[in-house]
């Protein structure tokens, strides 16, 4: 397990990368396997980690990530390309995570994360910080937690979060404000 800066490529979202993405999508629609592979390579870590941050279970997250890509590739013809592909993938991921939680009532699982280890200079402090962070996030309601995760862990802009959650930007802003307020309160207590 590594920190996000190492693993996650910055795909959000220069004009060049948008052009590349369109070309990849066109090749995917034509059924080109290499294009599927390239898109997977581009987005799989993002999708996997979002699922992991919401489910806190590595195996469940991997299953969800696979389901997301299978669903996305099966319905690639329905993607109109008006928004960036990752917003669509994030929408599917959130839906899959909700469905998974409903089905399995996934419980928190810290063991997987600790087994893999971190890259920080003080692993013990990092592990403590992780546990505290997850504890504080757990105190938030699901909409607030999702908004905060998308903003702080995935670095999405307000507009991008609004697109993923299909909400007005103002609502996203208010949710984040409230999420930060509640998070801070819990964080200071811990």
């Amino acid at each position, binding site marked *: *397990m*590594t*920190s996000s800066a190492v693993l996650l490529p910055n795909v959000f979202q220069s004009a060049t990368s948008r052009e590349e993405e369109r070309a990849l999508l066109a090749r995917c629609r034509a059924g080109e396997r290499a294009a599927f592979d390239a898109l997977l390579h581009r987005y799989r870590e993002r999708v996997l980690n979002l699922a992991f*941050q919401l489910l806190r279970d590595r195996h469940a997250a991997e299953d969800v990530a*696979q389901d997301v890509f299978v669903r996305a590739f*099966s319905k690639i013809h329905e993607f109109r390309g008006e928004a960036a592909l990752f917003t669509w993938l994030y929408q599917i991921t959130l839906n899959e995570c909700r469905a998974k939680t409903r089905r399995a009532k996934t419980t928190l699982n810290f063991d997987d994360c600790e087994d893999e280890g971190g890259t920080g200079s003080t692993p013990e402090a990092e592990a403590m910080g992780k546990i505290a962070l997850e504890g504080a996030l757990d105190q938030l309601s699901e909409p607030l937690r999702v908004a905060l995760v998308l903003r702080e862990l995935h670095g999405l802009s307000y507009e991008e979060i609004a697109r993923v959650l299909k909400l007005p930007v*103002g609502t996203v*802003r208010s949710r984040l404000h409230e999420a930060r307020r509640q998070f801070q309160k819990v*964080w200071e207590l811990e």
Partner: protein
Amino acid sequence: MKTKNDDYDQLPDSVLPDSALRAFANYPQIAASPDFNRRVLERVLAAREPSRFDLFCDRLDEIFARPLLKLLGAATMGAVVALIGTGVLLLACGVSTPATQTEAPPVVAAREPGTLMADSLFLHNRMAWARDEEVPFEMQPEYFAPREDKFQTPARREKSGSEMEDKRSSSCPAASRSLV
């Protein structure tokens, strides 16, 4: 006009404490398993693989795309449609018109033939007898008179039968025993 969202837009970007920001920044990320892509692509290909029913339909399409079979198929379909149409029409007619009330055939009671019939039979028998015996047949006036004894009603026949039986039993006791 000021909306609720405008109020939200005025909210300041609240900032989290440094320790929380550090925790977010250092939050560990997981890497996908090495065979992640392969498994996903296998599932995608499996999902795209046509089902057996689709293959069957494709095969049918292929067969009926040939000119002669196309014609035969169209003719068969036409016949089937015509048959179904006729059936439906007949069924509709049968349902819409009430069944005609059929009377039970009248029970014809066994009646004794009329006098006229009995007379003509009598005459016919007499004429046939005369022809067979080669004797001249002469019409007698009593032939035309109503003769009740010329024909026996069932009641009379029964009566006469019992009389005959009585006579038989009196004349021949063995015969009457055998009848019993």
